[in-house]
């Protein structure tokens, strides 16, 4: 079988997801053709159209824009090709026709468990800074919103968000923003980043600025190998494991079933898991 995989982009996390897909494909004896849209909606639409013209047997889409999915759904189902969304929740999730599935973790969870853990570490009291992902990106918005929601809960009402900056998922940007914070004399007790890369950048900056103490709290999301290593070294305090490889293989499984016209749940959940130094060992090598 030929499966088309349309990725929104290939950052560290999505690369792991993509690799999971390729591995699962290989095991099942299917060829997987990868397209990278570089975060461009228009480009992704074109790539999907190219895949349809190619007459692949199934298409797995990691949508750049979850709001553009009705169009994708229509295009692909019109061509009578099975479709699986992965990682990002399509806006038309509730209306997905038969022959279309969604494999992901529930994004609402990630920022929430992350912030709850920070809140626990701070005992519900303190100033936090937020490093946001690319503002035009869904995950950045959801995760930031999660943080705000948790801070609004009673248990964590002692937390205060002092400043939010766009670090665009990027380690160096996270590093520079943190250094700028330090030099501006902003008082804070924790930095919550929308992903691990920015969190590691923040840790680098704290160390370079001689503001690092073993008790400094920096939290990320993704549990990338770098993040796990950092946690192992006692630096990163919180991250959230999103089973990228699991999502990838789940997507392939769903696609293969759909090709064979077997029933597939509309939503295949691959849960988020909180990672702290306490349960770190369980995750090393997984992503």
């Amino acid at each position, binding site marked *: 079988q030929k499966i088309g995989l349309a*990725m929104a982009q*290939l950052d560290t996390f999505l690369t792991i997801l993509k690799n999971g897909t390729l591995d699962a494909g290989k095991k099942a004896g299917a060829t997987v*053709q*990868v*397209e*990278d849209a*570089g*975060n*461009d*909606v*228009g*480009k992704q*639409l*074109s*790539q999907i*159209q*190219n*895949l*349809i*013209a*190619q007459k692949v047997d199934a298409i797995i889409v990691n949508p750049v*824009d*979850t*709001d*553009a999915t*009705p*169009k994708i759904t229509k295009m692909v189902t019109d061509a009578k090709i099975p479709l699986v969304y992965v990682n990002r929740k399509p*806006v038309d999730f509730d209306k997905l026709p038969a022959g279309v599935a969604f494999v992901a973790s529930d994004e609402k969870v990630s920022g929430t468990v992350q912030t709850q853990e920070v809140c626990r570490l701070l005992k519900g009291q303190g100033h936090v800074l937020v490093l946001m992902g*690319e*503002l*035009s*990106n*869904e995950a*950045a*918005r959801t995760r930031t919103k999660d943080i705000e929601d948790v801070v609004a809960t009673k248990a964590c009402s002692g937390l205060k968000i002092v400043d939010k900056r766009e670090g665009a998922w990027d380690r160096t940007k996270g590093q520079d923003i943190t250094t700028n914070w330090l030099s501006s004399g902003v008082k804070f007790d924790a930095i919550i980043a929308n992903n691990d890369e920015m969190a590691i950048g923040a840790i680098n900056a704290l160390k370079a600025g001689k503001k690092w103490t073993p008790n400094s709290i920096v939290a990320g999301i993704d549990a990338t190998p770098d993040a796990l290593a950092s946690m192992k070294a006692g630096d990163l305090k919180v991250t959230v494991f999103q089973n990228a490889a699991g999502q990838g293989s789940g997507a392939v499984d769903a696609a293969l079933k759909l090709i064979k016209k077997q029933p597939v749940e509309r939503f295949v959940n691959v849960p988020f898991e909180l990672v702290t130094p306490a349960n770190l060992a369980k995750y090393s090598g997984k992503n």
Partner: protein
Amino acid sequence: MSVGNPSVGAQSMTFKPSRRKWPPELGIFLVLVGISLFFEALGWWVNGQSFLMNPERLQIIILQMAVIGIIAIGVNLVIITSGIDLSSGSVVAAAAVVSASLAQVSDFPRAVFPHLTDLPMVWPLLAGTTIGLLIGLLNGSLIAFTMIPPFIATLGTMVAARGFAKWFTGGMPVSMLTDDFAWIGSGAVPVFIFLTLAAIFHVVLRYTRFGKFTYAIGANRQAAIVSGINVNRHLIWVYTIAGLLSGIAGSVTAARAISGQSGMGVMYELDAIAAVVIGGTSLSGGIGRITGTLIGVLILGVMTSGFTFIRIDAYYQEMVKGAIIVAAVVADQYRQRNRRG
């Protein structure tokens, strides 16, 4: 053969319209044909099927580039005046979010303008176009009146327009658009818009005074001024048109995706400039035609489809793409030099 006729001396002026003139686009057209045939051959070999003899693919080749193509028309004008427009991609984003915000359906609870929903297609389209026009006007005015280099003026509006789009949407996508509006981006409509605009500006450049002045300004700005051309006014027009076309491209993008987002159109300016330059327009101004730009756009489109077709790995794809862009222009250059002798 000698020029002039010694027997009539100074009176001699020999016109030789007999000398066969090939259109300057011939070279790059051959490159396009070459690339297509390359994929055709590889297609049979790798896939056992034809690359070109597939109507769906032919349509997608243009369709996926229609938005870039619409931008490239305006960018071509700008580059012919020896300017540059870096703001196109950001204008696409600004126009996309604004037009989408006026094209939302009324049963969507989180509309940007809850009182302006279910509008007929013309309003959002007009709004997007107007945003583009205004940013273009700003570009043109900055360049004409403050004399700062176009690169800086449009770099500034590039950053600012992207910021505007983010601010306008608060980073959220503007979704749930009317079918009426979505029609602009459906089927072959974007291709139709692109080709119509291309035809119009082809005529404008070749047969109107506006076109002649555009070339003159690019060839020698000082000489254009002394020849009585109102260079400032003309430049404002050119940048405004470029902005307007990017605005249309933005509306089309929103209609295609059925959503307006501040992250749309990133780096489109580079693709558009690449298409224009591949198409034979000189970055130092004064030279360039829409037909060339059309071919440049097609080369980029064929390349994109071709890569998917022969299933080249995404990791190699960019390396090959870079090489092809360079090779295409080198081949064209080589042909032209040979012809010149």
